[in-house]
């Protein structure tokens, strides 16, 4: 039985990912949940690197860790009373939610293990950035331009919603 270095790295990244995601899901304190997201997003970026998706890994680090996480931390700090630690109370009871999620997970894993997935003829590991650029300006030009409009609309919408004088 030989253990390749790739498998060791995969299991390490998967362990970090699952443990920090469990921290997000189970931590009673929302500040700890928010900081656990660092490990989750970093772990997902590590999986992208192992899958040979270098550009997506970079985008994941830049947008999730650099953007969305900072935004979430700002929102936590702006709405969180530091003394009030029981802000994260329950909507559904933990037991039914746990049963439902366990059932869903069991169903998904059973399907994944039973299904014979399509295999590619050969697995390519080469830099993807130039091919992604070609696809964005070729096949996916219309969604790419629509994405820029969506981002502009979201930017203006977020500014207008959070302005104070609009609501008064």
């Amino acid at each position, binding site marked *: 039985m030989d253990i*390749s270095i790739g498998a060791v790295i995969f299991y390490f990244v998967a362990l970090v990912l699952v443990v920090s995601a469990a921290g997000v899901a189970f931590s009673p304190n929302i500040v700890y949940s928010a900081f656990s997201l660092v490990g*989750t997003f970093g772990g997902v970026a590590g999986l992208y690197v192992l899958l040979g998706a270098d550009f997506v890994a970079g985008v994941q680090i830049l947008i*999730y860790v650099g953007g969305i996480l900072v935004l979430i931390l700002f929102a936590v700090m702006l709405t969180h009373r530091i003394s009030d630690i029981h802000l*994260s109370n329950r909507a559904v009871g933990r037991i039914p939610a746990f049963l439902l999620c366990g059932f869903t997970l069991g169903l998904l*894993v059973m399907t994944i293990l039973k299904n014979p997935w399509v295999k590619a*003829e050969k697995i390519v590991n080469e830099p993807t950035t130039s091919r992604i650029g070609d696809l964005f300006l070729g096949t*996916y030009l219309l969604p790419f331009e629509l994405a820029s409009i969506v*981002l502009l609309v979201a930017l203006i919408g977020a500014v207008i919603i959070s302005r104070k004088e609009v*609501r008064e």
Partner: protein
Amino acid sequence: MMAIGLTHYIVIGAILFALGLFTVLTRRNAISVLMGMELILNSANINYVAFSHFSSGQIDGQIYAIFVIMLAAAEAAVGLAIVLAIYQLFHTIDVGAAQTLKE
């Protein structure tokens, strides 16, 4: 020990999805619900990139993953702006308390 293949990655995606679903179901704090949604979106992205690597051999899946990341950024910006507006209006971000659109 079998080699790391497609099933390993999509099982990780399924675990992340279940944890995100648990977060969305058990929290009343709107920011925690948004965090759970980010977990679910990340699990979908893992599936996209894993299938693009192992099953298709093309990189179209990575394009979809980038679009999902872009939409997640827009959703986080607008969602957190709404959360801050609700907090200023109701002085709480309990999702059960904000039942009307104005005071």
